[in-house]
């Protein structure tokens, strides 16, 4: 199958230079590459991204997410493995790779502080080889699409983080590349800007058919946006699948909490025993409230049959006053998986 991105057994080691007490490096050692040890950033990472999907690369700080993004963007080379972008080898043909993807790196890097937004966009349009008229047309439409109208003649140094991110995205969309990479897309954004930015990313995938890869440690963002995710830790992919599949990997339990009113003649013990025999229920705890009112907490496997549970309750004449279910979150799975991997 033809994947948008294919990463196979990639190993990347960074040279780790020993510095002086002042933090500086001997210039000759730097040139000759002496006095260095190595730190493994990616250790056999393997995953693929299908065309048109939104893929999340999740991991704690220092896990290797940014390294992966930079390898895909041809800013980094690696020692072993293979990385293909739309079937093009990133080491052999980096020039063609960058015509297939655009990257929004973390923070607000990428612009000269003393250029206006429009000057910056024209600058990059020329570097991408766009004809002047086409560039002008695209820049005008992106200024509107990214809500930058009114700011286009302002120097970049006056931009807030939110505006900066929008300008970065406008830059990334100039070339209309089929693949977009985002490194921590909503880092340092206020909640409202973050929600807006996520909507833009979602629209890129859903409405414009772009393949999106985002590196993040924001679990909510991953759950909200991604069709598939991979959890990377210490340079290895430790889990891979849809967000639901990854959530289930850790064997997390679903919790059903109810406030119920027992009918006359049904004792608490009998009621609990009836619930315990419902398939996939593993634990039932009861906390008396007052009179015949109870707080019941049922724990079960994630595919517990809630219908069967409710049927058992209702056929006994029990009145359900409140009901709340909670599934294991991606965050729970992430914490369990990364903790397990570090052990």
């Amino acid at each position, binding site marked *: 199958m033809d994947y948008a991105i294919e990463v196979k057994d990639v190993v990347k080691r960074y040279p780790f230079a020993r510095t002086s007490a002042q933090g500086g490096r001997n210039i000759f050692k730097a040139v000759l590459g002496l006095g260095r040890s190595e730190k493994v950033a990616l250790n056999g990472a393997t995953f693929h991204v299908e065309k048109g999907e939104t893929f999340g690369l999740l991991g704690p700080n220092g896990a290797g997410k940014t390294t992966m993004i930079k390898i895909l963007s041809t800013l980094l*080379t690696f020692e072993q493995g293979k990385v293909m972008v739309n079937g093009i080898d990133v080491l052999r043909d980096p020039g063609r790779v960058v015509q297939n993807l655009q990257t929004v790196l973390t923070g607000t*890097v990428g612009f000269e502080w003393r250029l206006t937004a429009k*000057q910056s966009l024209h600058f990059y349009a020329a570097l991408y080889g766009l004809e002047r008229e086409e560039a002008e047309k695209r820049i005008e439409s992106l200024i509107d699409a990214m809500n930058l109208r009114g700011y286009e003649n302002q120097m970049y140094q006056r931009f807030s983080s939110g505006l900066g991110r929008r300008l970065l995205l406008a830059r990334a969309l100039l070339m209309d590349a089929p693949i977009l990479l985002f490194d921590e897309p909503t880092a340092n954004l206020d909640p409202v800007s973050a929600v807006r930015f996520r909507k833009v990313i979602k629209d890129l995938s859903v409405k414009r058919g772009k393949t999106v890869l985002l590196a993040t440690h924001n679990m909510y963002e991953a759950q909200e946006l991604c069709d598939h995710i991979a959890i990377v830790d210490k340079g290895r992919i430790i889990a891979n699948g849809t967000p639901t599949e990854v959530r289930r990997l850790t064997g997390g339990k679903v919790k059903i909490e109810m406030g119920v009113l027992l009918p006359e003649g049904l004792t608490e013990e009998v009621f609990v025993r009836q619930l315990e025999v419902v398939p996939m229920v593993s634990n039932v705890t009861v906390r008396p409230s007052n009179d015949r009112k109870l707080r019941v907490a049922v724990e079960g496997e994630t595919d517990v049959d809630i219908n069967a549970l409710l049927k058992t309750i209702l056929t006994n004449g029990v009145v359900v006053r409140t009901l709340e279910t909670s599934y294991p979150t991606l965050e729970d799975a992430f914490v369990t998986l990364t903790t397990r991997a570090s052990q």
Partner: protein
Amino acid sequence: MKPRVVYYQISALAKRDFHIWQSYRTQVTTSLLGIIFGLVSWAVLGHYSNQSVPEYDTTYVSFLIMGILIYNFSVPIATGLQSKLNPATLETVFMSGLGRVVFVVGSLTFNMLFTAATIIPQLLIALVWFGVKLDVDYVSLILSVLISLVIVVSLAMIDLGVKVVTKQADPILWAIIIAQGIASGMLYPLQALNTYVPNASTIAFVIPFTWIYHLIRLSTLAGASITDPTIALTFLGAAAYCAVLLPICYGIMKWGISRAKKDGTLGWY
């Protein structure tokens, strides 16, 4: 890549630098005045120690002022890439798929145009105020400028290749610039060096800037024509020097960028 696209890319880099440059208006004024005051002070000094320089059939003040003009034109271009290694934008610029050579040439274009423009008022001061006498052979001058540009772009490539790895001073270009101040004939004729070191005036041609000073002085002060076999041989020598220098410098730049990509330090400062 299409020539038109390369033209867009080079002009985009030059325009970027122009926009940034003109946003520092006070600095623009002070730097222009600094160049002119510097020239005047050297010219006054030259005027008071005026002698003839037979090698170029000219006076010392003409020799010296031309040396300063050449310095003001060539050194800023050779060292001009330093400010373009901007950690905030370098990675994004390279992610555009821009070729290394286009990056170097484009990043130096504004510098070249700017220094060329500043030479005009300096030349006028030299001619009107200090009586510098020019004897220009235009064909030689065009060839001299082309060879000079190849040399300074090559030196800029070394600077890029080393600085992108060390993230601090570039000892190679630093040494070349120090050597040109002492032994390239900017302030005094090369023959003066022979008093201290035998054959120093010949050895000095190892330094790239020596060729620049010599060729431009030949074509602007001595009116040397390439139809003269001796002069033609000098130009051929310079071209051969460039043919060796350029690939070495390109190799150093390529090595530096590859090394930064391997080390993951391309965007570091």
